[in-house]
């Protein structure tokens, strides 16, 4: 592991009886892009607030760049930039003025603040909009300005809470690419939360799955799905368009019986010309050889891969369903 920047140990936050974050342990290394994934209400924002010392943990410890978030929040805020969900600006001021204000709050004097603000605006591609009032900015421009606001303090870590919320697909792509490009240029550690799995996996080095206050697992998406679905049954579908007509033939009954007898098949269904087999391990090869031997046509043979969508279905949508019950 690279030099750790963010270290979370046994972090817990309780609101009365409700546990928002439950004994969270997480280490993020320097220069990493980490995605905190989870459905709404999983405790992502609460964790981020505690990282920045904006909320006090009930238990546990958070350090950012060696500073304790609870006891040295100001030091943490000097090195960590935070883009809140739904970031707001002073709408009767221009984007440039908003940035200059941030720069001055971070201890730059007037001239430095203005130079730095123009520089950062250029980096996020907003030089043309510098003099426009932020009240007239579009959603995508606001997020860019928010990013500029974060970068102006030369942070070592940037923490983004749902940065892609409310953006259109191309806007999401641009923003995420921008974030990653900036972080690679300056070796900035990025932590962001999202409930959009698909966007996030494209840009993250690692993700953490966060459900109901607990970190289920962390790692890159491939190893994550392997681990999470290790004990799940394998589903193989095999068939042909021609099967529907041959349903009543002898060859069909024969192969149906043979398939059922393969070691490890727990359940079998026939639907729309396809056998759907639920098995304890991968039997695709055996099925294929059976078909070839039987002389029946086979133009569809798929072993179901567990991917993002399944992770999503399993934890995110299921999680919300359980909550509402």
């Amino acid at each position, binding site marked *: 592991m690279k030099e750790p920047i963010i270290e979370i140990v046994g972090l817990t936050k309780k609101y009365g009886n409700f546990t928002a974050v439950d004994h969270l342990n997480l280490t993020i290394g320097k220069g990493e892009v980490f995605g905190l994934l989870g459905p709404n209400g999983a405790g992502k924002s609460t964790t981020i607030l505690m990282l920045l010392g904006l909320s006090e943990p009930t238990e546990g410890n958070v350090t950012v760049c060696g500073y304790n978030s609870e006891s040295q929040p100001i030091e943490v805020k000097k090195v960590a930039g935070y883009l809140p969900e739904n970031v*707001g600006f002073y709408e009767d001021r221009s984007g440039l003025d908003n940035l200059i204000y941030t720069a*001055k709050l971070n201890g730059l004097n007037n001239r430095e603040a203005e130079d730095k603000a123009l520089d950062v605006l250029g980096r996020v591609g907003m030089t043309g909009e510098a003099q426009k009032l932020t009240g007239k900015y579009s959603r995508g421009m606001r997020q860019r300005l928010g990013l500029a606001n974060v970068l102006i303090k030369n942070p070592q870590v940037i923490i983004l809470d749902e940065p892609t919320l409310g953006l259109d697909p191309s806007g999401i792509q641009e923003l995420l690419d921008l974030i990653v490009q900036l972080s690679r240029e300056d070796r900035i550690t990025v932590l962001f939360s999202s409930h959009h799995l698909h966007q996030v996996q494209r840009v993250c080095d690692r993700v953490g799955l966060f459900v109901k206050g607990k970190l289920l697992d962390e790692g890159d998406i491939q190893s994550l799905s392997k681990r999470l679905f290790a004990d799940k049954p394998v589903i193989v579908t095999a068939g042909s368009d021609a099967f529907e007509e041959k349903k009543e033939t002898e060859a069909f009954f024969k192969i149906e019986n043979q398939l059922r007898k393969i070691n490890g098949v727990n359940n079998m269904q026939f639907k729309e010309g396809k056998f759907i087999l639920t098995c304890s391990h991968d039997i695709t090869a055996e099925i294929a050889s059976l078909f070839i031997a039987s002389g029946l046509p086979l133009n569809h043979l798929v072993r179901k891969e567990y991917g993002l969508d399944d992770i999503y279905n399993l934890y995110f949508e299921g999680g919300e369903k359980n909550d509402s019950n």
Partner: protein
Amino acid sequence: MTQTKHKRTKPNPFNVIVQKEISDQVRSWRFIIMLAIIVLTCAGSMYTTLISIADSVKPNDPEGSFFFLKLFTLSDGTMPSFLVFITFLGPVLGICMGFDAINSEINRGTLSFMLSQPIPRDYLINAKFTGAFIVISVLFFSLGFLMMGLGLVIIGIPPTVEEFFRVIFFLLLACVYVAFWLNLSILLSVQCRQAATSALAAIAVWLFFSVFYNMLVNLIAKGMAPSEMASSHQIINYQRFILDLLRVDPAHLFNEATTALLIPSVRSIGPLTMEQVYGSLPSPLPLGQSLMVVWPQLTGLIAATVICFALSYVLFMKREIRSR
């Protein structure tokens, strides 16, 4: 953004926020409207005062030597004096400067952004108060000095040193009075999520004190009135009690204090017995003595202001800041 002259030194974040608050206040429409109303009413009251001031000079008047102070208190009945206007408009000014101090930051989503900057959290609420208070003080002092200057030019009698200091203390008192309403509305802005709610709540408190509270006290006074046979001791106690009730109203405190400051012949604000008055010369009090008379009122006003601020400070520091 206001420019400071120091180019090399690092700005203190607190000053940066105060500067921004001041420029926000001064640019806002509501402040411009309030400013216009206050300036117009002051000009009006100045005009009526100057018209009627010639009639007000009577021979053997104990306040004759405090001619200049009349500029602030005199009225011919068509329009209230400067003092009355301040009593009435001061709370509105204070409320309109503070009612959305914190909740508008939450609703705009700027609060979580501000708090993620490397500044202590209390900087924000302190700067909100300081910024608004600076604007109020500058406004009142310039108005006061303008009135003095105009009076000087038109009636041609310069104020004595004592009169000058009486006016300064009066203006200070007015600032403290408005600061009370400012802090009350900041408190409500911390407590209420919507700016409209906190504005209405603050106006309700103000209306209660300016309209209904006196009625309420009258009601209590009627019910508690001692019989005609009551001893003088009982009557004095009763009077004191009613006066104490009235003094819960900050406007009453302010009125008592300003009366004693601007009308030097006022010797006491509470009830006086014949023995106390007997033998005293009908002469005005020196400034020091007038200040002694208003000291409790001033302390009371400052205490109310501090209590409101302390409450909003605690509430603000304890609040968990979530985005929007």
